């Protein structure tokens, strides 16, 4: 019942009676009928108010009122309406309608009770676990708390708590204990095998859990004393008597060097002891899941390590040959020193200490978490067998090719790092236009990101209206005191008097040209492609408000004979509707041959008349193409191409969603010139922000 005491149906009838005739085609938005009486009364009240100002605006409002009622609470709705009316008053009907379109989608959540929910603390907890260090762990909801060494699973709800901090604390302790399992080696491969080989897991696993619990508590007390205090506060004092014999038995587990294997070794002796209750923060163990995940991860990481060590060895041997003036390198091996107090592990080659990149350090630490040591196979150079890079793409050329898109043909050289020289005119590149796609995608994106697009526009407008103070002008808004003093002193000395005595406030002259180079390789299919397109639509709109020169091109290709560039917007293109249609028409193609695309687009960008030139790559992975372009060859060629364009005064920047990008992007783009977005869904939210940071 509404405040007027009428039912929803009555309210709806009243609304139809009053505004039905006004609406287009004589029909109100049917969704209005779903609203309750109070909401309908609210809508009718405001429709009446708006109608006084403008009938068209009232109709526009009625079309959006149902949606607003769903998304916003009452004060927000009112703010939305009043805001739009202000815009209408100031700037007329068109702007007022646009203001009604811009529904704040990121509205504040409604207040909730304090049922402990993971969703409420995920962001904070994610940062926390990330900050603790070690292998990056994801958080995910699940029935019970456990970890598979890559993800920490936590229950989606944990019952009633006094307030949000209590909920956060409860989750924090659970997460930290699971993090500790990973960090302090509960899941060494040998331990996992030992657990899986247990003849009676239902008896033995709980014992192992208690033993590990004691060991991990000791580890945490050493490294994170604050947390250990919190953990202690959660323990049941009445259980202490039960724990005492465990502590006596497990004294050696509490020492710094103890590992999960020691816990396993104690199993037979501990199994006779009565089991205390598990700790409230302890979570469960799931060796089978751990094993599955490790089976996948370990070979991958070992392969990566081999590759990295091979590269490292090439560099080291190369250096030596230069220093010693030739001679075959004597076969020596890498040697790993265990982590020193406070520091990470260190690697030496022969008698030389090797400096580890943070990425390699992380990789080694991750493998150490699984194995406890690096096996001789990884470190011995004879066991490592590197694939020979730099072979020709002959194999691929026999592949049947699809019909080639029509367009202008260019030839570009490619850098072969093995030969240390260019392969001249090696890449054949065609530039063609993207066929305009479905306009529905544009409308959908606009609708989906209405709030975001509004906030981007606001931020960009703020950049634009950033005033610059120009001193020593012939006319202007204010006197320039410095200039006057100077002129006065010139006058006194009998020098010529300057006329430039004023200060002007002027819009910052932005003199920026940006080239967006968008990955259209096959791997972008699905979410990535959608996110790229959405991001481009939002960004294009925003850059238009700034007035920067910009161009958008897609790239893909298959072998050096089929490099393709897809034009979405050239610098000259002014038809924004067409550009948007083309963005919507972008689709995944084949592979990622990046070097040639950078050379081509770099050349286009170099011709743009601007002081600052920026080449932004949107990508989902490392350069890769059929044949030999994989791995180091592709990375070296891309890096070389980037160096070439940088020499022309172009700044290159890469936005990627590849989480492993840390391994190669710093090498290609330089330390500060890339950003990794951890989830593709965030792309549209982040790109505009990055653009703003880069150009202000």
């Amino acid at each position, binding site marked *: 019942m509404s405040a007027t005491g009428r039912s929803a149906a009555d309210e709806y009838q009243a609304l139809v009676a009053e505004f039905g005739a006004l609406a287009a085609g004589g029909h109100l938005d049917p969704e209005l009928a779903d609203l309750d009486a109070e909401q309908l009364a609210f809508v009718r009240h405001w429709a009446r108010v708006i109608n006084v100002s403008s009938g068209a605006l009232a109709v526009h409002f009625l079309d959006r009122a149902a949606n607003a009622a769903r998304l916003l609470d009452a004060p927000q709705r009112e703010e939305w309406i009043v805001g739009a009316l202000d815009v209408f008053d100031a700037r007329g009907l068109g702007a007022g309608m646009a203001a009604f379109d811009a529904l704040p989608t990121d509205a504040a959540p409604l207040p909730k009770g304090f049922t402990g929910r993971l969703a409420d603390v995920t962001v904070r907890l994610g*940062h*926390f676990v990330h*900050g603790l260090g070690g292998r990056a762990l994801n958080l995910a909801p699940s029935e019970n708390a456990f970890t598979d060494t890559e993800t920490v699973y936590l229950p989606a709800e944990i019952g009633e708590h006094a307030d949000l901090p209590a909920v956060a604390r409860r989750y924090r302790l659970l997460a930290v204990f699971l993090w500790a399992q990973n960090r302090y080696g509960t899941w060494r491969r040998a331990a996992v095998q030992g657990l899986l080989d247990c003849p009676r897991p239902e008896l033995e696993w709980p014992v192992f859990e208690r033993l590990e619990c004691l060991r991990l508590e000791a580890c945490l007390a050493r490294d994170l004393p604050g947390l250990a205090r919190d953990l202690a506060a959660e323990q049941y004092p009445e259980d202490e008597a039960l724990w005492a014999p465990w502590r006596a038995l497990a004294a050696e587990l509490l020492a710094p060097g103890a590992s999960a294997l020691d816990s396993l070794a104690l199993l037979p002796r501990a199994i006779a002891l009565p089991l205390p209750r598990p700790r409230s923060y302890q979570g469960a163990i799931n060796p089978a899941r751990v094993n599955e995940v490790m089976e996948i991860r370990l070979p991958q990481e070992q392969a990566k390590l081999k590759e990295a060590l091979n590269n490292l060895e090439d560099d080291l041997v190369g250096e030596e040959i230069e220093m010693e003036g030739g001679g075959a390198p004597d076969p020596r091996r890498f040697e790993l020193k265990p982590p020193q107090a*406070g520091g990470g592990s260190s690697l030496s080659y022969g008698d030389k200490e090797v400096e580890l990149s943070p990425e390699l350090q992380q990789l080694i630490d991750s493998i150490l978490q699984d194995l406890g040591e690096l096996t001789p196979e990884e470190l011995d150079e004879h066991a490592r067998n590197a694939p020979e890079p730099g072979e020709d793409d002959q194999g691929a050329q026999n592949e049947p090719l699809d019909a080639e898109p029509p367009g202008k043909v260019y030839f570009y050289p490619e850098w072969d790092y093995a030969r240390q020289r260019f392969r001249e005119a090696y890449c054949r590149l065609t530039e063609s236009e993207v066929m305009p796609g479905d306009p529905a995608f544009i409308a959908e994106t606009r609708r989906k990101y209405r709030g975001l697009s509004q906030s981007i526009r606001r931020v960009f407008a703020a950049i634009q209206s950033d005033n610059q103070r120009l001193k020593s002008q012939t006319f202007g808004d204010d006197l320039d005191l410095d200039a006057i003093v100077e002129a006065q002193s010139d006058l006194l000395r009998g020098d010529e008097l300057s006329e430039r005595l004023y200060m002007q406030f002027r819009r910052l002259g932005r003199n920026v040209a940006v080239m967006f180079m968008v990955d259209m390789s096959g791997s972008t299919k699905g979410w990535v492609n959608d996110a790229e397109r959405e991001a481009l639509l939002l960004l294009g709109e925003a850059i238009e408000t700034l007035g920067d020169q910009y161009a958008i091109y897609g790239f893909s290709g298959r072998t050096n004979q089929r490099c393709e560039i897809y034009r979405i917007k050239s610098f000259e293109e002014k038809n924004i509707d067409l550009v948007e249609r083309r963005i919507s028409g972008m689709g995944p193609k084949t592979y990622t041959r990046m070097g040639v695309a950078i050379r081509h687009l770099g050349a286009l960008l170099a011709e743009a008349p601007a002081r600052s030139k920026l080449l932004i790559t949107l990508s989902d992975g490392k350069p890769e193409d059929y044949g030999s372009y994989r791995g180091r060859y592709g990375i070296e060629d891309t890096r070389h191409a980037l160096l070439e364009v940088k020499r022309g005064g172009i700044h290159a920047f890469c936005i990627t969603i590849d989480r492993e990008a840390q391994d190669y992007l710093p090498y290609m783009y330089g330390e500060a010139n890339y950003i990794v977005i951890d989830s593709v869904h965030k792309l549209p939210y982040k790109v505009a922000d990055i653009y703003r940071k880069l150009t202000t």
Partner: protein
Amino acid sequence: MREHDAARDCPISMHEDPVTNAIRTEENLFLDEPYYEPGGDEVAVFTAAYAHNLPILLKGPTGCGKTRFIHYMAWRLQRPLITVACHDDLTASDLVGRYLIRGGETVWLDGPLTRAVRAGAICYLDEIVEARKDTSVVIHPLCDDRRLLPIDKLGELLIVPREFSLVVSYNPGYQSVLKDMKQSTRQRFVALEFDYPPEEKEVQIVVKESGVDADLAQRLVRFGHMTRNLKGNGLDEGASTRLLVNAAKLVNAGVAPATACDNAIASTLTDDAELLHAIHDLSRAVF
């Protein structure tokens, strides 16, 4: 020479004016050795570059010890130090000097760079990329083998004495393309790269700078590393060594460690509520 006033960290001049409590920048000499923990061979490289009149570029993230290093070198070489914090309104004449009017007369006033050249001091331009582009007009001739400072208004060319040295700093982590150093400028310098010190050394620095015990310093540094883990995941920068020292000083003055971390570190790093919570939780975990 006066005894160093231990209560103050700032450099004490030989010529401090007893009335105004001010010192002339040309006479800003370091009497006591500033505490500096060398990370590599930067002292030797700086000394060699100084001996051969090569200008020096210090690269590195904020709060990793660039300024302290230059203080240390000024003390070691026994040269006065003139520091200019560059900003986007800093013009060439701010550096070189300008005419002023005093009692109806015009008086020339040297800018800091000119004063440094005249005094044979070390001139340190902090965050050089922030300065206006026209400053390169004076920086370039100073930095190559010409070693000249043109003062157009006076119609003078100042010949630079051997003792003068130009040092600039620059943080390559800022990602704006408008704030990049031009090749023509950077290629005139000898570049020294700085980064946060390794863990044991950082502990040592925190102990020495703040007077806290090694255990507390160790925990602070561990916390610092946790915030550096978050770099790129919401934080633009992790906690610098300077922030860790600041927090340690607060602790030494009786503030609870976790509170000191919140105020001296977490809140200075970010305004994002979720991140603040997470950093807060991390500091609680360590203390």
